[in-house]
């Protein structure tokens, strides 16, 4: 299945990557999306994840066509 992956803010700058598509087997989780999209890089602490624009946990399963985003703690307002 295909997942669209997005990175924001300092994480995007650090990885040098804003957007990519990854191919994963059925049953894959958000943690698997990170591993595939970051080419196996260790996940920096406190990095948050969203699945289809909703906050999610790393153990959550993903589905074909999902958009998964990773980003650092937010600093708006």
């Amino acid at each position, binding site marked *: 299945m295909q997942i669209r992956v*997005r990175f*924001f*803010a*300092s994480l995007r*700058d650090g990885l040098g990557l804003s957007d990519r598509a990854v191919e994963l087997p059925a049953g894959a989780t958000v943690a698997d999306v990170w591993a595939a999209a970051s080419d196996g890089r260790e996940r920096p602490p406190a990095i948050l994840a*969203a699945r289809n*624009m*909703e*906050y999610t946990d790393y153990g959550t399963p993903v589905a074909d066509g999902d958009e998964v*985003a990773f*980003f*650092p*703690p*937010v*600093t*708006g*307002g």
Partner: protein
Amino acid sequence: MRAEVRERPFDPLAELVAYQQGLAAGAYGALTSFVGTMRDFNEGDAVLGMRLEHYPGMTERFLERLLAEAAERWPLLDALILHRVGALAPGDPIVLVAVWSAHRGATFEACRFLIERLKSEAPFWKKERLQDGERWVEHNTPG
């Protein structure tokens, strides 16, 4: 209720007046608002400018849900959230939160709820421009 992310500068007081003109006069007895403005200092350094980034789509959805949650918890007549993105200069307004209700208890509490949840959960990120380069803001200051 309205939640909006705006790329251009805005005047929060003019926005407040304009929005309130759309409400039924006499229906509300209280308005509480919060305006967050860009400072020219942070963590002991002079800050020359800032770029605010967001996650288009998720941010708007989050803010709309937040307004709905506030309206469930308090008897609100209306509420408004307006947040800047893009390039900002010191003194520029960043965020406006405004809440209307019959009485002040609900407006004070709901306004605080909205700005605190926005600051801790809405997907916005600040990058500061300093004398000697740029840096991402890693955490918000406590209220």
